[in-house]
């Protein structure tokens, strides 16, 4: 399962985090790669740097203890963020009494980023590249021989360019082939539940099916922004837990977004609706997306805005559709809801039954205020109507909308 996603994950991850992570810290590019060394005669020095002189002598002098630290800190991921540079390193010492004058060769391969950017994702890469260099050094003194710095520089140039552009780099150097890839760290995705509806984000539709893993291949045709997880499992004939973990995986890689199930009895609420008008790109995208028949004249922003603006507490989607007749204006109300949820113009107001009596019996145990109506329906397999009746009769149950 992992492989298919690591192939796809890269570009998606970068595009989604680039917009969403906010101002505080951003996924920064690698600005520079250098090799710090402890030379037996010259002391601390940078023996190879791409681009030249990115780290000035003054800066290096101030921080060299962090580039070549004491032996206990060797083979640790050590990142230092001072003087407006962030340096990700992996200090290494190779002991060999024959080869080296002081019985040890100490070096550190470092990536340099902007001081405000995130750099965790580079740590495994730095470590892996260091391991390659250690291997090459042990085999052929690749680093400690003076004349090979040009080849090293070539490696650095390729790594810097390819990782920044494609997040993947493959370099052939002598007998070794170096494979590097940046994998993003993201917070854990929320657990997927039966009643949730996965929505495939548009830019992945054209990925050939065979690039996905087997489970994903099987369920992908059923992911349409309308079917909920339990239904996908049933239709694709895949076990529900398998579907859930597969979808959770897709959510982690930003391929899929989870939405509440779409019902005409749902109530939605607007938030930040002004973004829809303020961004022309967004409103045009919206017009295209919600059109019932794309070949006809697209619905106007006014119509769409009016539709969204009429969403408020206490007004069901059904009522809005009856009032505004979206289909007469070439608007597909289902797509409209999906677009609104996806871009967070609207959010679904969920119903939560709460049991206020003393001892809950059977189904009342589920009425804790934490489990929404949709979830209860999915869990019990009963229709919303049955449960609604049931709750209405029960004086010990209060319903909260939020």
């Amino acid at each position, binding site marked *: 399962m992992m492989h298919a996603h690591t192939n796809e994950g890269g570009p998606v991850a970068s595009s989604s985090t680039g917009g969403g992570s*906010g101002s*505080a*810290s951003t996924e920064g590019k690698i600005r520079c790669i250098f090799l710090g060394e402890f030379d037996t005669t010259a002391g601390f020095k940078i023996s190879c740097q791409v681009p030249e002189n990115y780290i000035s002598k003054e800066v290096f*002098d*101030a*921080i060299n*203890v*962090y580039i070549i*630290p*004491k032996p*206990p*800190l060797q083979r*640790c*991921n*050590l990142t*230092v*963020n001072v*003087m407006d540079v962030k340096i990700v390193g992996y200090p290494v010492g190779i002991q060999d009494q024959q080869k080296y004058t002081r019985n040890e060769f100490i070096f550190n391969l470092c990536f340099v980023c902007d001081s*405000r950017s995130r750099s*965790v994702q580079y*740590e*495994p890469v730095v470590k892996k590249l260091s391991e390659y260099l250690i291997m090459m050094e042990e085999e052929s003194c690749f680093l400690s021989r003076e004349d090979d710095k040009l080849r090293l520089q070539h490696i650095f140039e390729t790594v810097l360019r390819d990782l920044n552009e494609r997040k993947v780099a493959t370099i052939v150097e002598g007998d070794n082939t170096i494979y590097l890839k940046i994998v993003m*760290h993201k917070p*854990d995705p929320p657990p997927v539940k039966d009643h949730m509806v996965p929505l495939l984000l548009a830019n992945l539709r054209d990925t050939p099916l065979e690039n996905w893993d087997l489970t994903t291949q099987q369920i992908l045709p059923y992911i349409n922004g309308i079917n909920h997880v339990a239904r996908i499992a049933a239709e694709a004939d895949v076990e529900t837990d398998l579907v859930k*973990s597969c979808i*959770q*995986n897709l959510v982690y890689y930003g391929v899929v977004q989870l939405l509440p199930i779409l019902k005409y009895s749902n109530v939605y*609420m*607007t*938030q*930040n*609706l*002004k973004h829809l*008008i303020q961004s022309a790109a967004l409103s045009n995208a919206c017009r295209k997306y919600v059109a019932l028949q794309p*070949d*006809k*004249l697209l619905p106007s*922003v*006014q*119509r769409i*805005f*009016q539709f969204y*603006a*009429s969403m408020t*507490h206490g007004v069901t989607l059904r009522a809005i559709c009856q009032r505004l007749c979206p289909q*007469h*204006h*070439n608007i597909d109300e289902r797509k409209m809801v999906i677009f609104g949820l996806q871009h967070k113009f609207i*959010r679904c107001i969920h119903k*939560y039954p*709460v049991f*206020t009596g003393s001892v809950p019996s059977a189904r009342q145990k589920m*009425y*804790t*205020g934490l489990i929404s109506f949709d979830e209860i329906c999915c869990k019990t397999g009963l229709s919303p109507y049955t449960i609604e009746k049931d709750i209405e009769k029960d004086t010990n149950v*209060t*319903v*909260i*909308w*939020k």
Partner: protein
Amino acid sequence: MEVNPLAVILVYYDSKGDRLLYRYPYQPLGQTLKLEEPREELNNKKRNPFAVAHTDDLLQTANSQSQSQNHHHQQQQQQQQQGQAQPVQGQGQGQLKGFADHVLSTLFAVKPQLCHQKFELKLNDVRFVSHPTMISVLPGTGTGTGSGSTAAASQTLAAAANSNTTSSSSNTVALGKKQQMVINIVFALHAQASYSIVKCYHELSKRLGLALKFEEQRSGYLTEQLAQMARTHDEQQQEQQPLERILELIAERCSLAQALKSICNDLCTTGLLSTTLNQNLTLTFCLPAKAHQLHKKGSMVDPETIDRCLRALKPYHGMLLLVDFAELLDCVPPTGARMLWQLVDAYNPLISLQSMASNADLSIEHVYKLVSHLVYWAKATIIYPLCETNVYVIAPDAPLHTRSHLVEKFSARFAGLSLFEVICDFSLPTSIGHLTTPLQQPARQGILAQMVLWMLQHHLLMQLHTYVQFMPSDADDEFGDSASCAQASNLTEEEHDQDEDEEEEEEEQQQHQQQPDEDVDQLAHGGGSMLSMSSQPLPVPRNAQRRGLAEDQYSLASDNIVVQPSSSHKSNFSMTASLSTDNCDSLDSIEDEQKLKELLQVFSDADRAAIRRIPASTNVDDLSLLVKLYQMGYFKSEHHLEEIMYFENLRRSQLLQLLDKFRDVLIIYETEDPAIASMYNNK
């Protein structure tokens, strides 16, 4: 909790060398004490499937750990209480043998070039942050000023030196020339700590450095404390005491170590700290990410969010205190308390900051500052002053469930009432005015207001505001729409479109039939441009339908206003008005005509046409108010009604009437105030 510090470390460095003098908690970082048991437990748990790819990656291990912490919350919490540094220990795994003190000491004894700026170092999955401060030791601190304690200290130092303690002791016996020393108060954090949390800790380290610098220059406090710490280290090391014992002793003997210990503890418990250094200088600090959790568990409010909320502060906003008056004072140094008391005396959640300022005899800027301070320190929150017309609804992230502690808290506060019974009234947007009737006792309204305030304090309720967007759904568009549809069908003749198009054609025919009837309207347009002439008036059935719905929506949007005159009445009225202007040739009407034209100049052609179709556009007063508000940018979904009322000095009914008259070009909807909503966790 990634907010809590793992440790605080004090490192000292001068020409003679560097030394780690104190750190808290005392267990060595990375050393495994009671770890065997929990680790095994963790390994047995089902691991996060996403961690599989990077079994060697420390950050992921920590992630999976936190994941399992979520699953097994209570057990883990107990563990965390047992050992503060547990998460660091957790990453032992043979990768990191623990940070020996002398290794840390060399890392944090920074070169002079790195002083007075942010220092951040990440070692595997621990992030260290600090602000190294260089302090010049005053010549003659030890001898000249002759304060008893320092003299004593230097004496004992000399004694220590005699007893051949060769370590790089930190003595700074005055040598007559100016010396420099670097002190570095380092906070160890989880690597996952966000940028803004790191920034807060950096700020704290900076302030501590500054305070110590001041105290050093005032009375040589730092020299004395450092000397005492170094001496304790040397003495006890000779007696081969374990390191933990030494650090304990230091905390007993040195007030600085004591202060650092209490700072670390406070940061872990409340996130608010107020420490007095050398019984003289009070340092107050707030870690918002932690402090705001006291009122709302699990919320992560970073300073940037608070700043965003506070930047949007307006005079019409109100303030709601979250704590008792007594608790307010621990967030201000005693010197600043006078103004705060002035404000607190005038405090009332029912009035705006503006009124509070005038009641307290403070300038509004001062009130802003005080309120911002209180909000930052999680002592208050921003609301719109409580009144009958405010519309509230349950907050989307309100922790309302049967096991919530708020349920008991509520019934304790309001004699036996059930929180759920009360709050379910707010499942639909409701105002206090709506929930009370004049028939009830007035006391009931008071209690209700109290309950609403309580629920606002606990972020259970959220206020909704009405926003206005200028958006003429112009006839051009509509007509063009149907015309193009008709065209398309003519060209392609698709079967399934047929019905729809036929309908539209019928409508078009209707339009043509109705044109003569609309002459009055056309006249009312005056000498319209070609554009407005060409724009067809709307077919009547559709128009009626739209009007009906706009009204429907409108009545929803403003539950709380007086009954509006029915639309037919008004349009009749304006119709006659427009007729009269047409018929009457008095000077007034010509002037009016001129004025209307001028007013309409601000709109684009298409918008102007749409406005002219509205009967009320012939009324100079109405139109000029509309134009004024339009020009001020109030109809861009950026300002809610209350704001417009406040800044334009309008009454609610005035504004609502205007909005009603021009509802064909305005879209009115309810949503939360983004500035205040940002303080809620909208997921």
